[in-house]
């Protein structure tokens, strides 16, 4: 469970987030939606410790984790799949997954059966199994995204933050990624999802948060947000055929 | 919290108490008479530090001895020591500081010829005598000769290059009859000035060196230089460099399995050469002004002082220490004779010392004249040899002066 209250964050002296407060309840999937520059990625980064919140509080499963460095938050059970995949290119697929279990292998977190989890990932993502010993830099974009998700799961997290998992993927792969997310939801992992395909994200989410210029302008059940034409025209753009045109992630190159 | 509290107050207390100590003037048993200030300018850091430190130690021992006997003119001698770092520009600053701020009556020291050449003009202008006791550049005492200058204030008792080069060539060409000689000199102005003197001394004997090579300070491998000398068919190597690199040459020769005699200038006598080259140093010969043996009571006391004052079994560079020690005595004698701290009078006294001055190198009888400011003549140049890890006289005839 994540509880965020009064969260302000940004880069250098520039504030991006202006006092966010929301809760992602245990085992639910919340979609975070907003235009480019609204502060979606910044929100995830401030929660996972990649940037230090300027004000406010973040709690993970009841523990105050505000201002903790990211590695400590990871050890507390929060996994963050950062935007742009960011796999460790020099390491093989298997080593990427092993490093994903770093905090389990080096003590503080309960170890469990890492080897078994590794095999489970290869079952979950059969494409990765074929490339097990290949340096991850040589994988295709879709495979890297699978690897990034699998790597995060190796932490056996209680909370998972996903930042634009569909970014730059061919439509077929997008569907695969969403399928995987749906499976995780079935395992009752708490998830916060930033997604450019707002329509698709709302379809699988329980709750929705709409972010505008660093402020939450609307929070509610995903279904309501999706089905209410007034909300859609006010926050998501115009008519539904074009709606996703609004919601695109950051551009690459 | 409590720990911080304690730590902070402890340190605060410490700081306050130390600050109080400062206010209480440190008890110094000063003699009543105002001391005579003598400047010491030498390299205590940098590449020539080994020689500079030996020089400083020699001077300090001499000053201590003289002060123990009541000083000069009833006044103690106080040393004002400054590190010129072997850098010309620092030497210039030090000279001006000693002259204008500290107002020394004379300065002893100087290791680097370049520093001496850059800094001496200020002493000359201020009419303050300089006893240059570890420089080797032949030019050092000849920078301000009449008639261009009224009087020359630079004196030296040290082995200057042309003297050393002459001795090295004599050893190589006359005594040992080598005709194919290679010169290895370092790339500093010490090495290159010496190289020039060596070449002219050789040409005076009608010998042209078969190879003239350079190496840098801190070079760790001399293969290229040695192979070039070997290729040229050298029968012996004349070196102009300082201890550590010379040791690398000796070691490099051993590595290449090419053993020809090494004949070097004064710094080959540095402890670092003998130690680092170890067995490869055996048989190397070099020009020395002083070979540390306890052959006279004076020398015994001198070596003993190093042991007690500096805890040194072996002096880093014995000639520098001995030359500077003697230089200080010469200066003290001149002060006594001049009965004045006026630079001009001291210079006059130095140029006409009436009493012989006994030093560790020898006894100086009228070492300087108005026309000659170098106390040493070729008879001061001895040939030392590394035997069993120590430097001894190579030739019987060179035994104590």
């Amino acid at each position, binding site marked *: 469970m994540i509880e965020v209250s009064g969260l302000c964050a940004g880069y250098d002296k520039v504030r991006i987030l202006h006092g966010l407060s929301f809760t992602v309840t245990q085992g639910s999937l919340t979609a975070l939606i907003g235009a480019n520059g609204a502060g979606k990625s910044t929100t995830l980064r401030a929660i996972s410790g990649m940037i230090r919140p300027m004000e406010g509080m973040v709690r993970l499963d009841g523990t105050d984790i505000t201002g903790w460095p990211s590695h400590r938050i990871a050890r507390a059970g929060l996994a963050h799949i950062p935007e742009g995949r960011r796999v460790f290119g020099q390491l093989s697929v298997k080593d990427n997954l092993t490093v994903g279990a770093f905090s389990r292998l080096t003590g503080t977190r309960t170890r469990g059966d890492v080897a078994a989890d590794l095999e489970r990932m290869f079952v979950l993502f059969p494409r990765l199994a074929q490339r097990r010993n290949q340096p991850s830099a040589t994988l295709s974009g879709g495979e890297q995204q699978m690897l990034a998700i699998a790597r995060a799961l190796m932490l056996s997290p209680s909370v998972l933050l996903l930042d634009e998992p569909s970014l730059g993927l061919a439509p077929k792969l997008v569907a695969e990624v969403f399928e995987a997310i749906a499976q995780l939801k079935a395992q009752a992992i708490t998830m916060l999802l930033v997604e450019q395909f707002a329509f698709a994200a709302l379809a699988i989410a329980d709750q929705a948060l709409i972010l505008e210029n660093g402020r939450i302008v609307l929070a509610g059940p995903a279904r309501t947000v999706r089905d209410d034409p007034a909300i859609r025209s006010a926050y998501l753009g115009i008519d539904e055929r074009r709606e996703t045109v609004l919601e695109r992630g950051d551009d690459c190159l | 919290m409590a720990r911080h509290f304690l730590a902070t107050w402890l340190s605060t207390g410490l700081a306050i108490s130390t*600050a109080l100590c*400062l206010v209480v003037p440190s008890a110094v048993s000063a003699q009543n008479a105002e001391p005579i200030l003598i400047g010491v300018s030498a390299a205590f850091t940098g590449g020539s530090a080994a020689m500079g430190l030996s020089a400083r130690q020699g001077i300090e021992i001499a000053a201590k001895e003289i002060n123990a006997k009541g000083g000069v003119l009833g006044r103690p001698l106080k040393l004002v*020591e400054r590190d010129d770092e072997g850098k010309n520009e620092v030497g210039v600053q030090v000279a001006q500081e000693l002259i204008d701020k500290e107002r020394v009556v004379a300065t002893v020291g100087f290791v680097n010829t370049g520093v001496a050449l850059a800094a001496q003009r200020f002493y000359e202008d201020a009419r303050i005598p300089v006893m240059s006791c570890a420089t080797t550049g032949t030019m050092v005492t000849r920078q301000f000769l009449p008639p261009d200058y009224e009087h020359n204030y630079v004196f030296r008792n040290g082995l200057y290059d042309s003297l050393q080069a002459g001795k090295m060539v004599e050893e190589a060409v006359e005594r040992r009859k080598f005709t194919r000689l290679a010169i290895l000199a370092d790339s500093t102005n010490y090495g290159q000035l010496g190289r020039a003197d060596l070449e002219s001394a050789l040409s005076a004997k009608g010998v042209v060196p078969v190879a003239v090579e350079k190496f840098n300070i801190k070079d760790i491998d001399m293969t290229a230089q040695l192979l070039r000398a070997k290729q040229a068919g050298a029968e012996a190597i004349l070196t102009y460099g300082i201890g550590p690199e010379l040791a690398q040459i000796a070691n490099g020769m051993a590595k290449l399995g090419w053993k020809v005699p090494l004949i070097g200038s004064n710094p080959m006598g540095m402890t670092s050469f003998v130690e680092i080259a170890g067995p490869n140093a055996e048989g190397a010969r070099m020009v020395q002004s002083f070979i540390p043996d306890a052959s006279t009571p004076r020398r015994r006391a001198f070596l003993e002082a190093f042991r007690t004052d500096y805890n040194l079994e072996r002096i880093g560079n014995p000639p520098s220490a001995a030359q500077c020690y003697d230089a200080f005595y010469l200066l003290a004698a001149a002060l006594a004779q001049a009965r004045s701290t006026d630079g001009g009078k001291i210079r006059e006294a130095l140029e006409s010392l009436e009493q012989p001055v006994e030093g560790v190198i020898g006894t100086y009888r009228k070492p300087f004249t108005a026309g000659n400011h170098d106390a040493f003549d070729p008879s001061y140049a001895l040939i030392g040899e590394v035997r069993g890890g120590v430097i001894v006289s190579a030739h019987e005839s060179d035994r104590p002066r």
Partner: protein
Amino acid sequence: MRQPSERLLALPLLGLALLLPLPIVGISNYYVHLCLVIAIYMILLLGLDIVVGYTGETSLAHGALFGIGAYTAGVLFFKFGLGFWVALPAALVVSALFGLLLAIPALRVRGPYLAMVTAAFGAIIQILINEMSFLTNGPMGVRLNRPHLLGLLPRDREYYYLVVGLLLLALATVNRIVGSSFGRAFQALRDAPIAADCLGVSVWRYKVYAFVLSASLAGLAGVLFAYGEQYISPNTYSIELSILFLLAVTLGGSRSRLGALLGAAIVVLLPNLLADIDLVRWIAAAIGLGAILVMVSRIRRAGALTGGTLDMPVAFCLIAWPAARSLTSVIDFKLTIFGLMILFVVYQMPEGLSGRLTRRSGPAIVRSAARPDFLLTRDGEEDPGDLLVVEALTRQFGGLVALNAVSLTVKRGEIHGLIGPNGSGKSTLINLLSGLYPPSLGSIRFRGQRVDGLPPAAIARRGIARTFQNLQLFGEMSAFENVLVALNHSLRGTVFDVILGTPRRRRSEAEARTRAMALLDFVGLGELADEKACNLPYGKGRLLEIARALALEPRLLLLDEPAAGLTRPEIETLTANLRKIRDQGVAIVLIEHHIDLVMALCDVVTVLDFGKVIAEAEPQALSRDQRVIDAYLGVQQPAVP
């Protein structure tokens, strides 16, 4: 109105005024010489500061450049018997040439790499001076005699005044330059080199300027040093000297004339101070006392002792005194003390000493009344109907084809939308149009001329301006200065006009200031003109980028997501502004995800997907295009319950 450069000048001038009478009132030669060396070092540091402080590069070659100046004098004297007055201009020219040489690698590498290149450069120079005995007299060095000047004062005093005079001249020159478009350009290429290039401020050109200027000052210092010391030898100009100069800049503080003075004074005086053990003990006691006072005030403020009461620096200061007390001679520990000072300054005073003493100020801001006749472009020439014609443009990155045979035409005065999913190549297209990447294949014609393959600065000067998706502002400069940088093209005159402050230069500078302010007002940032760019909120930063791009007086404006991060009222202002810009005849290529903005503004929209143009149409027609819908929604639409 007070010129800021004068304010900056005031403090060092004060220091110099204090130093000036010293040599007259019969002070000892020692101090005169110390002041002389300080003055000479200061000249060099003024130059080094241009490279280190303004362009943000590291140079370990300045010791060698200093040597080049000194040896220009040395060689002229030694080989040709030519004296000071020939050496002075000659050294400036020779060292400037070497600066030019040094600038070449600096164009290719930065950071530790550049540090190494400059170190290697310095080492080679030193070896050459040492080895080329036929020219330089090698390690034996060269002796020189000071020039005869007026003969009114002793020679060394006269020389001192000469050096101080030249220092003031150098100071004034550097002040003029860094306060001018040159200084702004230097800082721009430090903060955001890519943006500088895209604003027509050629990184290449200004880096060369900076290095040449810096090298000439080093050369000037070198020749003065040679005649000041009257004896030079190669071993002086080593990497240690270069490091010493860098340390002086660090200690004194960069981007500050006062810093140069302080830095020079510290590195010259420190060894002399440390030689005096009693003085050192007093100073150490004072430092210890200061540390105690700091601690006491901290306890007062916190109301109790906390962990912060005794931090590392304070602890260091506390042990300074007992340490000094226990040592009989600190001179042996001189370098340690030096090192500790640097660590202290790097962490406690990253701005250097001068940063602590003064507060920086930007250039004077010209407030102007709103001008209804404000024109975005003053270029009278008529554009062709097809302003920009892109044909079969392809760009590959390794195996990835980011842009695949894209063709499009932007007409005069139209707003051309560019949309498409992420990774579809929109930003790549903008980067190719602005010259950041050369195309792999294909051509770009702008106003009828080929521009593909031209460097960004050249393209910018032909009339294509852009903004960046990830802000590329000159962070350390004010909003006003950010716009001024882009107005460099409107300034008349050369670097000599800047140094001399000629009327035509002043006039165009004043015009530029007025215009910069007008542009800021135009985008609605007039109130924030003084604010440092890095302090601006995200949305304001985007507006500033637009103002900056407009300062180029472009015929084509490339906007990469200008509305991202803007609030609704801001978006409305932006919409209105973009219309105004178009109405003045400037064409716009607009990448934007706010679809309502695209719909409202664009005359035509091109849709990219996977590097290819999949549609080009009027906005209204677009929403009915099945290919576009597929690209956005994905062919296999996720199941919706």
